[in-house]
């Protein structure tokens, strides 16, 4: 499934860039992310725990920032696997930022995500809404981080 959208964030483009080009920050903004570990300059691993309809998924995740074009574009590959339910998630996310004036920036994203295994069998009908709400939450976390977190205090 593909999702795309644009959001406005109250932050300068350089601040937004500093955040979204930092894979560690991105991973920590993922809802349910924990035990985040750096594997290399661009690769991070962690565990993503999500709950839906009483089902808890614990996905072992790997994130790799495969492209970076400062100060506007990043592309990230992510894979998460839950062996208990033989489920896998593959995602590619592209984010582009642009100055929108008045100290704000526009963040547009395209996310291509696939679920396979038992969770996918349960039905894309169930999973889609959850994913959309998680994506919304992710970008809210990005916004929070910028507007209220450490990044906001950077020059």
């Amino acid at each position: 499934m593909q999702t795309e959208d644009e959001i406005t964030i109250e932050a300068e483009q350089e601040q937004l860039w500093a955040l979204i080009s930092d894979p560690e920050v991105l991973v920590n903004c993922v809802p349910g992310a924990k035990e985040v570990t750096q594997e290399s300059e661009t690769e991070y691993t962690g565990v993503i725990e999500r709950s839906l309809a009483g089902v808890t998924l614990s996905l072992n995740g790997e994130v790799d920032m495969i492209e970076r074009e400062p100060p506007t574009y990043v592309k990230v590959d992510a894979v998460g696997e839950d062996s208990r339910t033989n489920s896998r998630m593959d995602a590619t996310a592209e984010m582009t930022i642009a100055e929108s004036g008045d100290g704000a920036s526009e963040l547009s994203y395209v996310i291509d995500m696939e679920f396979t295994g038992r969770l996918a069998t349960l039905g894309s009908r169930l999973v889609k809404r959850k994913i959309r709400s998680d994506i919304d939450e992710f970008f809210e976390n990005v916004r929070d981080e910028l507007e209220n977190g450490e990044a906001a205090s950077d020059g």
Partner: protein
Amino acid sequence: MTEYLKPVDRESARRYLDEHRDSAKIVAGGQSLSLLLRQGLLDPDVMIDISDVDEFSGIETGPDRVSIGAVTTYEQLESHPVSSTVETLGDSVDVIADRQVRTAGTIGGAISHADPSLDIVPPLLCLDATVRIGSVDGERTVPLEEFHDGYMAADLAQNELVEGITFDGSASDWESNYAKHSRVSGGWATVGIASRVRTTDDRDAFTDVRIAAAAVGDTAVRLSSVEDALIGEPTDRETVADAASNATADIDPLDDLSGSAEYKKHLARTLVERSINRTVDRTGGVR
């Protein structure tokens, strides 16, 4: 190995749940739960089977109250007279899945599961239903409209369970209907619309309207934009058609296997119009 508990009464059910909290799953008909269990997505430590608890069963009709016990099956609801007098309930149960599911699936199970596609919820929303919740700490009630507070989420603490649902079935001057579109008969709703109306004595104008939709949002939703556009207005088809076009304002469908968001929006408008027209026709009004 999952522990299986079968409480014999309400107190034991509440006690078991309080003891095990979120390591336990409440089960009655198992129509939502079994799917998750069979696919290995759920592996609860404890299952509490409440299907034999008398206090949770049965349909009681009083002068101003209809009370449906949580473990009432769709089939039991279907065979009860209330399904004929409250047509939105009868229409809805008619189109839910198939006989096998209806014989096992329960109203309480549906309400607890909080899947926005479940057909029984919009009729209950139109009936201004209240959810009865119990635990060792006592009882409380929550309007169904507030009970589903997120996608597949319900306002239930870990030691609470749904014990019944109540609505006022007294007013006999309401008419109602449930209209559903699905790929195949008995399949998941692409869109499901419940409508319930009250008109003036001469049936020329709406005095009160309730409309709710399944499968087009994080939860089942009331279509207040349509309701507002109808209350006090004439019952003719043009007015209804106009009002129905407001349905889009209250819904948030997604693209999925049932159809695209655009199509669902169109279907919602169409089914709202048809459902209200059918309901008005049931009042016997000449239009």
